[in-house]
C-alpha cells in the first residue's frame, strides 16, 4: 500500500511539472543556502585553524606599544621572561621597513634570534637559520623569503650571495620555506637578520615583540600571568602599553566567532525554508481542492480517512524531500565554486547533508499535515458530487 502511495505521489507531481518545480524552489533555495553557507564557513574555519597552528598554538605573543620614555623591552627584561617556568624558548622580534636593494619598493626587515629557528623546524627551505653565534657576534648574515630569493637571484642559488640593506652588506645563508598563508606580512617577502643588527639598521635600541614558546603541557594562563608581572614592572605599572596574546585562546575565539556566524547564516536560510514550506502547503491545499472527486471516489471504493491522509502526506514529503535533495546538490556545487574562488578548503560534511535532508522531510510533514487532514475529512458524497 505504501508503494502504491509513493507511485501515486510521483504521478501527481510529474503530471504538474512546472507547478511542482516552482513549489519546490523555496525548499531548493533554502536547503541550498544552508549547505553552501555551512560548507564555506567550515572551509574557512579549517583554513584559519591551519594557519594559526602553523605559527603555533603553543605560543604566547607579547606586543609592546611602549611609552615615550621606553619604546620596548630591554635585553635584561627578555632574559627575565626566559626564567618563567614552562617556557622553553623566548624569541625577540623586531619589525621594520627598509629600501629594497633592487627596486624602489620597501621590504620588510625582521630581527630575530636563533630561538625562532630552533622552535620552528620547518621554517627553512634551504641553507641554515640564524645561530646563537650570529646573534652574539652580530654576524652580517640574512635568511630571505622565497619570493625575494626568486626576484633577487633568478635561476641562481641565493646561498652565499650578498645583499645590501641600508648600506650594510649581508651574506645570504638561508631561504625561508614558501607559505600560502594570507597574513599581513608575508613570510615570502621578508628578510630575517640577527636582531641586534636589525636594531642598528632600523635605529632603535629596544625590542617591541617577543614570542614565548611553551613546554608541552605547560600552564598557559600561569605563564601569561608571570609574563604580565615582568611587563608591569618594566613599564612602571602602565598596563595599556603592552598586550599578551595566548594563541590557544585566539584559536578558541575564532572557532566561537565562526560557529556564531554559521548559526546566524543558517537562521537566515531557515526563513527561506519556512517560506518554502508555506509554498508546499499552498500547493497541497490547491491539489486537495482540485482532486476532490478523486478523493470521493477513493473513499467510495474503500479508502479509510487514514489512508487518504497518508497519501497526501507522502505527496508533500516527497515534494519537499525532492526539493531538499536538489538543494543539497545545488548548495554543494555553489560551495565548491566559492571555495575555489576564495582559495579555501572544500569539505562537504555528511552531517549537514543528513540535517538538510531530514529538515526538508520534516517540513513536508509539518506543512503537509493540514492539507492531508483536510482531504481525509472530505465528505465522500459531496466530493463525488463535485465531479
Amino acid at each position, binding site marked *: 500500500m505504501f508503494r502504491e502511495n509513493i507511485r501515486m505521489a510521483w504521478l*501527481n507531481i510529474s503530471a504538474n511539472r512546472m507547478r511542482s518545480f516552482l513549489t519546490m524552489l523555496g525548499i531548493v533555495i533554502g536547503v541550498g543556502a544552508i549547505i553552501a553557507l555551512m560548507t564555506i564557513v567550515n572551509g574557512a574555519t579549517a583554513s584559519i585553524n591551519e594557519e594559526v597552528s602553523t605559527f603555533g598554538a603553543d605560543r604566547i605573543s607579547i606586543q609592546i606599544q611602549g611609552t615615550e620614555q621606553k619604546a620596548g623591552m630591554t635585553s635584561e627584561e627578555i632574559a627575565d621572561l626566559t626564567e618563567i617556568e614552562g617556557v622553553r624558548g623566548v624569541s625577540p622580534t623586531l619589525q621594520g621597513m627598509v629600501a629594497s636593494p633592487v627596486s624602489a619598493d620597501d621590504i620588510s626587515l625582521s630581527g630575530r634570534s636563533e630561538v625562532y629557528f630552533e622552535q620552528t623546524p620547518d621554517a627553512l627551505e634551504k641553507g641554515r637559520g640564524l645561530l646563537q653565534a650570529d646573534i652574539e657576534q652580530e654576524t652580517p648574515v640574512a635568511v630571505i623569503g622565497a619570493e625575494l630569493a626568486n626576484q633577487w637571484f633568478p635561476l641562481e642559488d641565493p646561498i652565499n650571495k650578498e645583499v645590501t640593506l641600508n648600506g650594510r652588506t649581508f651574506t645570504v645563508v638561508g631561504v625561508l620555506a614558501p607559505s600560502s598563508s594570507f597574513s599581513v606580512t608575508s613570510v615570502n617577502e621578508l628578510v630575517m637578520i640577527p636582531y641586534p643588527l636589525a636594531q642598528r639598521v632600523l635605529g632603535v635600541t629596544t625590542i617591541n615583540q617577543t614570542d614565548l614558546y611553551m613546554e608541552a603541557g605547560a600552564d598557559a594562563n600561569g605563564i601569561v600571568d608571570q609574563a604580565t608581572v615582568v611587563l608591569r614592572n618594566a613599564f612602571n605599572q602602565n598596563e595599556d602599553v603592552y598586550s599578551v596574546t595566548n594563541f590557544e585562546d585566539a584559536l578558541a575565539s575564532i572557532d566561537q566567532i565562526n560557529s556564531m556566524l554559521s548559526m546566524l547564516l543558517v537562521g537566515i536560510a531557515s526563513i527561506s525554508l519556512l517560506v518554502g514550506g508555506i509554498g508546499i502547503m499552498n500547493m497541497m491545499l490547491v491539489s486537495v481542492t482540485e482532486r476532490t472527486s478523486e478523493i470521493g*471516489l477513493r*473513499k467510495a471504493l474503500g479508502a479509510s480517512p487514514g489512508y487518504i491522509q497518508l497519501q497526501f502526506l507522502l505527496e508533500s514529503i516527497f515534494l519537499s524531500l525532492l526539493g531538499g535533495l536538489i538543494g543539497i546538490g545545488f548548495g554543494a556545487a555553489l560551495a565548491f565554486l566559492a571555495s575555489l574562488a576564495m582559495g579555501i578548503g572544500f569539505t562537504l560534511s555528511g552531517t549537514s547533508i543528513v540535517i538538510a535532508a531530514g529538515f526538508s522531510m520534516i517540513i513536508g510533514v509539518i506543512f503537509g499535515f493540514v492539507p492531508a487532514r483536510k482531504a481525509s475529512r472530505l465528505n465522500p458524497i459531496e466530493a463525488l458530487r463535485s465531479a
Partner: protein
Amino acid sequence: MSAIVSMNDLSKSYQLGEEQQTVLKSIQLEVQQGDFVTILGPSGSGKSTLMNMIGCLDTPSSGDYTVGGKNTADMSEKELAALRNKEIGFVFQQFQLLPRLSILENVELPLIYSGLSKKVRRNLAADLLGKVGLADKLSHKPNQLSGGQQQRVAIARALVTAPSLLLADEPTGALDQQTGKQIMTLFTQLHQEGKTIVMITHDEKIARYGSRIIHLLDGEIREERGQGV
C-alpha cells in the same frame, strides 16, 4: 434467500438553516440475494440520498440499516470504508475513472484498499476486464476509450472485490441510447449470473430492466411492483 440490504423505518433529514428538511421518510426496504432492484424517481425525490444510504456513504438520522448482515449504526468511518470496500461495488453516471492510471490500474484500485498483493490484484483485475470485453486494452488510459468502454471498466472495478451488492447510479446517464442499451444488457447478464443489483434512475425505460421497481416520491416509497419474479 437472505436479505443483502435491509432498511427498517429509516429516515434522513438535513438541517437547512432554521428549517429541518426530511429527505427520506420511514423507508422500509429489503433487497434479497439475486434481486435486480431499480429505484425510480424524479429529481428531488430523495433517490440520491437513498443511494448514499445503501452505499454506506451517508448515515441515517433514525432507523436501522443492515448490509451483508452488519448493522451500520455504530460503525466508525474506518469500518464503513472497509464495509464499502468488501460489500458494495459502485457504478457512477460519470464513470469516475482516474485519468492518469491505466484501466488495469483503475480496476485494481479497490483491491489496494483490500490489502491484496500486486500479483493477485493484477490477475483479478485482468480477469474482470476480460469478462467485460476489454482484455486487449489493459494498458490503455481511460481517455483512449469510448464512453461505453469506460463504463465497462467502471463495472469491472465494481465487481473486482466480489461485493454482495452492485450499486449503480444512473449508469446510462452519460451514454447515447445504443451504448446505454449495451450496458443494460451487461447488467441483465450479471443479474442472470446471480449478482444482486440496485440501480437508481429517473428513466422509466431503464427501470424496466429490473426485476423489482420501486417508485420513490418526496422521500417515500409510493409503489413497488415486481416484474417476472
